[in-house]
């Protein structure tokens, strides 16, 4: 930079930005304390979905004891998978990040619910297993 401006630059650098207002600092503190803003029911559903999955797996395979193994011939499965569904329930753009190679990218946080469906060939009963899933996508961007 020009020598002419060195003195002015130094003077500006010595000036400090105005301090943060107390209200603003408190607002940021509250924001930091809040839980990540994903739908609350997704988090609540996680243990229930896991428990339900266990029940489904156990129910379709049946007990693996000696009595069950001895019974022949093998019966048709109680439930057969008939469909898979992926629903995007929430999406949040978390802004720009810089990749290791220096390129900018956008970080997208998505909340999905995956549902797997089974049907019983004998009774036509339908079983559904839904499980929440969080996906983070890094999408490279180019500025023009």
């Amino acid at each position: 930079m020009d020598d002419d401006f060195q003195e002015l630059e130094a003077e500006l650098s010595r000036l400090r930005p105005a301090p943060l207002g107390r209200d603003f600092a408190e607002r940021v503190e509250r924001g930091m304390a809040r839980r990540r803003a994903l739908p609350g029911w997704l988090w609540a559903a996680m243990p229930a979905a896991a428990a339900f999955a266990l029940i489904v797996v156990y129910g379709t395979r049946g007990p693996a004891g000696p009595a069950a193994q001895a019974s022949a011939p093998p019966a048709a499965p109680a439930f057969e998978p008939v469909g898979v569904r992926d629903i995007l329930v929430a999406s949040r753009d978390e802004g720009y990040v810089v990749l290791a190679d220096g390129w900018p990218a956008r970080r997208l946080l998505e909340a999905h619910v995956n549902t797997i469906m089974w049907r019983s060939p004998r009774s036509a009963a339908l079983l559904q297993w839904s499980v929440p899933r969080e996906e983070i996508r890094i999408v490279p961007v180019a500025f023009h």
Partner: protein
Amino acid sequence: MEEFSENESWKNWFHRHGPKLLLCARQWTASAADAEDVVQDAFIRFWRSQRGLPGEPMALLLTSVRRAALDIARRRLRRAAREAGAEARDSFAGPLLEPASGGDDRRLAIESALRRLPTDQREVLALKIWGELTFAQIAGQLGIPPNTAASRYRYALGNLRRELTAAADCHG
């Protein structure tokens, strides 16, 4: 610009660097309240999910702040187009710089001169002096060549000095 220490609390870091972020944010927002909103959002997002990423923390944060500020500006423009009478710009309401302990006249004169700078010069000056970015980083932020960033900076300093000299002459 210093890196994060793993053990540093967000409060310490924000206390040290928050004022710089806010000052830079005010170059891109229509009001001081908008500047606080974008800094808050960008900082929380950064601290929670982007802190471990490689790169200069201040540069990453300023990218995020600027993007959020431009989003707000676009929303305001759309709203202003719908409503009669746009909101008055009060981006520089309130002090930009910390009051000096001794005489405060010089600080006020500098703030006044800053307010009169063209926006493109003022934002480069703020990013360089208080954002502590290099010209290459500023160029990346603003989508301009580094030489343009450097020349805007020189123009800003020249205009600032001219304003300050004129103000000093007026006050004898």
